[in-house]
């Protein structure tokens, strides 16, 4: 395997881990997914076409393995654990609140259907264009656009309903 191929792979690892974390929810499972993607990429390096985007190719591999994985395990999505949240007892309150808010966002994302989650992770989190995301997801651009819109609105609704729920709990406790 050429050093440059591996170097490209290592360079894109942080983004692949972020994408996989969004898909899988759990850090350990996400890293398993990325590891499997690396291994598949190395065995299929000859299939990569020079001049095309390496990161898109790798995102597609991660996405494909994840779909295969879901099919194989017939997973019904449940809220996976999220290692992004480690609330230490000595953390300042501001930091705890911030972490909780981010945890809420991650939880809201996990509730979305897989195709919407993928669109959000590729476009909103990773900043890919609709066209690039469509190529990775192997769907038309219009499909990405509508998935993205549904996902953004659903995410917003979930976050706002979460806020409303907390407000009512706080009020109930205050009473």
């Amino acid at each position, binding site marked *: 395997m050429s050093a440059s191929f591996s170097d490209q792979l290592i360079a894109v690892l942080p983004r692949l881990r972020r994408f996989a974390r969004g898909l899988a929810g759990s850090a350990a499972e996400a890293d398993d997914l990325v590891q499997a993607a690396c291994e598949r990429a190395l065995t299929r390096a000859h299939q990569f076409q020079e001049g095309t985007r390496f990161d898109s190719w790798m995102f597609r591999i991660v996405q494909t393995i994840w779909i295969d994985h879901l099919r194989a395990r017939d997973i019904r999505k449940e809220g996976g654990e999220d290692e992004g949240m480690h609330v230490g007892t000595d953390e300042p309150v501001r930091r*705890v609140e911030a972490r909780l808010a981010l945890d809420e966002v991650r939880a809201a994302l996990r509730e979305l259907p897989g195709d919407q989650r993928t669109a959000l992770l590729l476009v909103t989190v990773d900043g890919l264009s609709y066209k690039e995301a469509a190529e990775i997801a192997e769907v038309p651009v219009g499909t990405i656009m509508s998935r993205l819109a549904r996902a953004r609105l659903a995410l917003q609704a979930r976050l706002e309903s979460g806020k409303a729920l907390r407000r009512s709990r706080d009020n109930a406790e205050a009473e």
Partner: protein
Amino acid sequence: MQKPSDERLIAYLDGEVDERERAEIAWWLEQDEGLRERAGRLAENAALLRAAFDEVLREPLPERLIAAARGESPQKPQKVTNLAVHRMKRLLGQRRWWIGVPVAASIAGLVVGYFAGNQAGTDLAEQQEVVSPAGGTWLDSIAGYHKLFVNAGVNDAALADVPPTEGDAAHKVAQKLPPDFRVPNLKPWGLAFQGARFIFIEGRPGTQLFYTTDNKALGPLTVIVANSNRGDLQPTFARRDDVNMIYWRHHGHAYALVGTADIGYLWNIHNDIAWQLDAI
């Protein structure tokens, strides 16, 4: 001209509409306060989503992944079921933190500001840039330049190298900037161009553009354009004290939008600037 649907509004926020439609939606945003608020909330939630996952980029890479990428002694992915259950139980206990923790509507700003400001950067290289050994950083510098502009005021003649009153101000600014650059027109946001200053940031030349507005929620803004020999970088939020920033790199140039406006505003203005500069 129909009011934009949610799908088109989101495509606009993502910079995925053509020039004609962009102008139409910008017109609607100017006219319709409800639509403007909706766009702001959508942009804010998008920023929050990015912040929620940007932490991953700053984590050290597990050795097993580096080894796998190099094709060295691959390890079988570990089964994590038991570990996951254990962690879930622990987290469920921690969820009690939710009770009594009010999350204000402005939490998005706090969260993004906290994480981006303290751990700014979206890739490993960026992390090296933001936290330099000397303690002085590019972001610190541009936040400092913004404060200088705000404190001095636009009437300080010594501050602006190119005042807006000069007939060829835009041309003079453009000479120091990337080819095809033009001073962003932020009038639709109520922001008036007040001049430019040529500066050095971390030893590299850059240009600071000043904008002011009567809208206190938006406040004065500065736009920074500088040369960069680093790779492209997606828009990233950062915060220094009460100054919010969004910065990105494109084709050898670094850009930053700096101000005290909330991140929703900054994100939308960034989209507008990026579109105008064709920087994304």
